[in-house]
């Protein structure tokens, strides 16, 4: 393996890890912290992706806005892109998450296994609603010029990471720090951690556990929406895309360690890096004709092996109050 290949493996690792972390971050809160086995996580990403489609596709929201402005006499040519779609996805999916928590999840906090079935059902409803509204075909996404291609200074080097992937790394870091700051530097973060550690005691001390639950779940759903919005631009958008992400997201959270935000980052980085390096090694040193599939196989074997030795994951929670 020469230095170019090593550099490529490193840049692939950076990109893969950031994608995994972004996809898993919302779940790290709903599943890792709130203990809701949220099978609808992938479908919330899907809702985020479709929100992005509605916002950015010229035939959808921009046309409606232009038409409305035309009615009041303004000749507008509004063209919305991914930068508008990200906050829109956060708000729309966050609101869906809020409704879901208020209408369903709140009755299931002491029955974690039932959340699995309930959220799975909700996920199916979301999928079929989108299927009925937009059809089963893939929908095309358009990237703004500045996120297409590879930055010129990186072209031809081992670190030729496409602009969109660099952007994803940035968004992931932003979300990670945002969540960290919220959880550990703010009063409402303190309340969340208090409610998670001991619900009754927190309530006795005057924390509105209902409010904390709803807002946390809504926020985590919003993060899933953002992930869906961005990954839809990198991969593809279809009504059943959630299934592609939900298994990876659970693997990342479980490997990282439940209840730890650092776990999502650690788990995502471990799987992303491991996968990229194994795939690179297989491509360079073997004549195997499907290195991608084999890399995935090896990484899952490693994850299972690691969890056998250390069931609590990379970053184990030390409190005894759990379970």
């Amino acid at each position, binding site marked *: 393996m020469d230095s170019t290949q090593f550099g490529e493996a490193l840049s692939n690792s950076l990109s893969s890890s950031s994608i995994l972390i972004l996809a898993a971050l919302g779940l790290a809160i709903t599943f890792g912290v709130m203990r809701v086995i949220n099978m609808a996580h992938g479908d919330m990403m899907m809702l985020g992706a479709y929100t992005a489609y509605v916002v950015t596709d010229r035939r959808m929201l921009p046309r409606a806005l232009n038409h409305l402005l035309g009615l009041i006499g303004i000749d507008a040519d509004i063209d919305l892109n991914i930068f508008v779609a990200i906050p829109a996805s956060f708000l729309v999916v966050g609101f869906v998450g809020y409704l879901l928590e208020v209408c369903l999840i709140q009755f299931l906090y002491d029955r974690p296994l039932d959340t699995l079935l309930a959220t799975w059902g909700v996920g199916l409803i979301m999928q079929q609603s989108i299927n009925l509204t937009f059809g089963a075909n893939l929908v095309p996404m358009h990237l703004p010029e500045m996120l297409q291609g590879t930055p010129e200074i990186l072209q031809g080097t081992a670190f030729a990471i496409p602009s969109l992937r660099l952007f994803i790394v940035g968004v992931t870091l932003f979300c990670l720090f945002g969540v960290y700051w919220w959880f550990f530097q703010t009063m409402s973060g303190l309340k969340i951690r208090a409610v998670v550690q001991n619900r009754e005691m927190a309530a006795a001390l005057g924390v509105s556990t209902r409010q904390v639950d709803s807002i946390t779940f809504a926020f985590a759903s919003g993060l899933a929406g953002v992930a869906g919005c961005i990954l839809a631009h990198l991969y593809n958008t*279809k009504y059943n895309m959630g299934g592609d992400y939900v298994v990876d997201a659970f693997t990342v959270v479980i490997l990282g360690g439940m209840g730890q935000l650092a776990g999502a980052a650690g788990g995502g980085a471990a799987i992303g890096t491991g996968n990229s390096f194994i795939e690179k090694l297989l491509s360079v040193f073997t004549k195997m004709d499907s290195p991608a599939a084999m890399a995935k196989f090896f990484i899952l074997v490693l994850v299972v092996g690691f969890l056998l030795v250390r069931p609590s994951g990379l970053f184990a929670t030390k409190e005894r109050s759990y379970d």
Partner: protein
Amino acid sequence: MIHHSDSTRTPGSTLIRIAWTVFAGLFAAMLPFVGIGCKKSTDSDNTVKVGILHSQTGTMAISEKPLIDAEMLAIEEINAAGGVLGKKIVPVVEDPESKFTTVFPEKAKKLLLQDKVAVVFGCWTSVSRKNVLPVFEEHNGLLFYPVQYEGNESSRNIVYTGAAPNQQIIPAVDWLLSKEGGSRKKFYLLGSNYVFPRTANFIIRKHLKEKGLEPVAEEYTELGHKEYQQVVQNIKKANPDVIFSTINGDSNINFYNELAAAGITADKVPVVAVSVGEDELRGLDPSKVKGHLAAWNYFQSLDTPKNKEFVKKFQAKYGADRVTDDPIAAAYAQVYYWKIAVEKAGAFDVDKVRAKLGEVEFDAPEGRTKLSGKNFHTHKSFMMGRIRDDKQFDIVYKTDPIEPDPYPQIAFPGWSCDWSDKNKGLVKGTPVKIGS
């Protein structure tokens, strides 16, 4: 209904609840009879039943549903023109749910034994076809299969109305080797990991070897694979002058996106795809795929009166945003092939219809086609298309109709098939092992 009775807080509520439950139970119990009743009523002497066996749910639904649309359009037209032998066609549509090894053979059996259909139009993936094949052979049914495939198969009970390998894969390679196609020498073979791409690449490898060439790489990704970073790096390193893609399904979008992001454009290294048609292009941003190539036997942009009429009828029935592509056109035409064979035979009996397959000729959307009485494949012209801005294709190369051959001799030496000659039938040659 039961829920409704719960809210009735009158003294007799228990009774009402029981009444509702009994009523609902009876109603549910009657449903299957209602269904059978409907079927019986159409089962008169003036109709003939045909089976349609394409997935309406599951992963393949997105590709297979338009084929049902095309077949229904043809059936509607035939019925409007008086039917077949004076009988109206009644389609029995079953949903095999993209479950290739379980529900496909089950539903095939149901269509043949229970519905006693005269013919079945169905399947997309090779694995589903391979799983229903024994059912059709055991019960002497007739299946019309409308999708291009890898060859290396023949059955007296299957009519292949998509391309055989010598009508799509081999002419595509030949064109790329020619001066017109850019005299390309360094082929990068990239496909999804299952029977069609592996057999196709096996044939390409043998064909290139004959010309003294060897592909620079052969690589596979799983169906639905998302992350193409490493593959694109492998491509850069191998420095091919053409990528021959047998990637199927959604992965194509991830692959083209990654290729475009890495700056590999069609004018430098074109991708030639054999499973990307107008329908698949709908989910792609045209800037990412413009200029890349696709090898088929039909394109929507084909400029013939017959095709224009077909596209117009299809869009009038299903919406102006719909597109037609190679498998859709073949699915439409194959209903007519069956009608013509039945009329020549003067009967719906499978053996009699089969004997007349070799006489079938039809003005299909793709051009004048005819069936081969030897191997029940279809004579087809090969076409190479280049992707335009509007997600349609410019046809850059077109051949005269090619006689179909499921066993190209370079790849399957000694194998041949001739059902028209009782003494020949399927002749087995050297055993062939495909895959690594």
